[in-house]
């Protein structure tokens, strides 16, 4: 699949370098007499030269970004099985609802009586997430998953301090997301790693040894980053609770069991939900995210403010609550992301959400069955929503996970996540999600099997990949060791760094 990049695409700052008079708009006369800047501004705030903004016509700008977008791979283009990231399709209906003028044109300082619909939506979203998690209350404030982790850990700290129990350690499994130890550290705890047992889940004997009165909480991802369900989660929770600790559950993988099992029943005290994973809101793209946190009864008093509360038929914001950890951000939440996620939840319905998790697990197991034998599976436990192979069979032919990933680009698929989780050397972490049609999953498996054959018969094809993309294999080592950032075309390229050619 050759992308349309038959010529080199310059930086937008490199176009029209003389900044000749081009533009995409004409402002009408304002009807107000112009004021000289020096009359209106203090001398030290006057600039001597105009800022070096690009001066381009509308068509040039459209073409520039359109061409760049065509050089990229997107969920709208083909299977994007980036494990752990959960690259689902973003349904268009969610873009429609989140652009309704009644939502888009709100101002955060409007009085509550004017925004009852928005408050109700937030309240209903909290209720929906409480129902899906089986937990009594939810905060919608956190702006991302890791922000949710910090929010949860601060609530756990508040609950411990409220009972006069200062603890210092948080246990984190070696298969955890890297954000877990970072969040524990930010919340003032020291993170201690706990090793996985042979089946890839938490070693109970090791937990029993480490779990003492210094441990505030254990942070667990369920299912974990190997796509393996912590099947002793109830025992783990009982052990931790019996010694005064809390269970922080990383809900990044909630999409594997939403509608089928309740984290509340597993003993979770705090659980963040990545709306972009389980509930299909857009990933990044410069836009905001959301990482709501569901909590157990023990943490309810410490939820952040402001919170939406219901009073009769109306809704209002609760701004003060004595034992709250306080606000976790300005204003209320990334509201339009909540609109998208609630649209997804209501659009799917109860049955649809159950089917969503089932199909995600089914597809991961389909990939596992089709690729077994061709790729090595380090952990043999039952697969949930993602499956982790490694490149050890291909390494015998000098082929690494990087070569496999690059070759997939030639064959029209985004590569899986590589070299994560860290406990699997040369990992290839595949997560199809529930979005694709079965034929697309099958086509991906065919491509992976073809690559496995090529590794044996023609490894050079893999080493040279990608050849069908506008940019071939980039020198990642050089790029990382010798970072050159620039935006002025005329700045000299440092000696020894290859130029684009």
């Amino acid at each position, binding site marked *: 699949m050759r992308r349309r990049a038959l010529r080199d695409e310059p930086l937008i700052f490199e176009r029209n370098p003389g900044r000749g008079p081009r533009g995409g708009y004409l402002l009408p006369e304002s009807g107000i007499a112009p004021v000289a800047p020096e009359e209106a501004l203090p001398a030290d705030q006057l600039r001597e030269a105009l800022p070096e903004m690009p001066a381009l016509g509308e068509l040039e700008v459209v073409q520039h970004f359109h061409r760049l977008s065509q050089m990229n791979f997107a969920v709208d283009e083909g299977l994007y099985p980036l494990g752990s990231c959960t690259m689902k399709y973003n349904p268009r209906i969610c873009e429609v609802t989140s652009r309704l003028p009644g939502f888009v044109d709100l101002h955060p300082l409007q009085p509550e009586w004017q925004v009852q619909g928005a408050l109700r939506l937030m309240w209903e979203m909290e209720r929906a997430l409480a129902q899906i998690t089986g937990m009594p209350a939810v905060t919608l404030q956190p702006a991302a998953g890791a922000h949710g982790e910090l929010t949860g850990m601060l609530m756990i700290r508040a609950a411990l301090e409220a009972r006069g129990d200062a603890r210092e350690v948080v246990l984190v499994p070696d298969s955890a997301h*890297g954000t877990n130890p970072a969040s524990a550290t930010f919340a003032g705890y020291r993170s201690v790693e706990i090793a996985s047992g042979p089946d890839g889940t938490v070693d109970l004997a090791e937990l029993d040894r480490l779990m003492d009165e210094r441990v505030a909480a254990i942070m667990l991802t369920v299912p974990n980053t190997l796509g393996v369900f912590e099947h002793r989660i109830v025992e783990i929770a009982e052990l931790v609770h019996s010694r005064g600790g809390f269970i922080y559950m990383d809900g990044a993988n909630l999409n594997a069991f939403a509608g089928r099992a309740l984290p509340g029943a597993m003993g979770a005290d705090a659980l963040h939900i990545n709306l972009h994973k389980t509930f299909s809101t857009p990933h990044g793209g410069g836009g905001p995210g959301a990482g709501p946190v569901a909590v157990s009864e023990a943490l309810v008093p410490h939820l952040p403010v402001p919170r939406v509360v219901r009073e009769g038929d109306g809704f209002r914001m609760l701004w003060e609550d004595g034992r709250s950890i306080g606000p976790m951000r300005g204003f209320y939440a990334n509201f339009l992301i909540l609109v998208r996620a609630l649209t997804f939840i209501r659009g799917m319905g109860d049955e649809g959400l159950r089917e969503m998790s089932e199909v995600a697990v089914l597809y991961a197991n389909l990939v596992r069955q089709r690729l077994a034998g061709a790729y090595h599976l380090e952990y043999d436990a039952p697969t949930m929503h993602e499956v982790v192979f490694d490149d*050890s069979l291909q390494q015998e032919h000098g082929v690494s996970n990087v070569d496999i990933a690059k070759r997939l680009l030639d064959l029209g698929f985004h590569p899986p996540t590589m*070299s*994560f989780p*860290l406990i699997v*050397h040369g990992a290839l972490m595949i997560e199809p999600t529930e979005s694709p049609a079965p034929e697309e999953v099958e086509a991906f498996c065919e491509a992976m099997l073809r690559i496995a054959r090529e590794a044996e018969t023609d490894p050079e094809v893999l080493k040279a990949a990608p050849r069908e993309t506008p940019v071939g294999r980039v020198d*990642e*080592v050089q790029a*990382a*060791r010798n970072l050159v950032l620039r935006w002025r075309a005329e700045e000299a390229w440092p000696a020894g760094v290859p130029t684009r050619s």
Partner: protein
Amino acid sequence: MAVPEDLSYTRSHEWVRREGDVAMVGITHYAQEQLGEVVYVELPEVGQQVEQGSELGTLESVKAVSEFYAPVTGEVVGINEDLADEPDLVNQDPYGGGWLVKIRVDGVDESALMDAAAYEAFIAAESH
């Protein structure tokens, strides 16, 4: 040469060379191979107290960011300044020019360290 005879090793793939009361620490040939090409090394500060098993610094490769751990307890008395400009020394010469940290040893739990033969068996089991 991949596992020199005269060093001690940890389960987290650091090596230790003890001369008098100073321990020189690096990561093994096996570890640098698993990590891939190192592009950035974050080292502790000289004077810092470290406890055996605690995080000593991080190694960043194009694949991943990994911590390395103190194989002994003591005070950091030297760091390899060359790695700021030449992080690839960790790959090129893991047991020599790619050393990471020197620690003045206050204590060491010998049971957490392995000799060359034991370490070789350990990585053979880990990599099948």
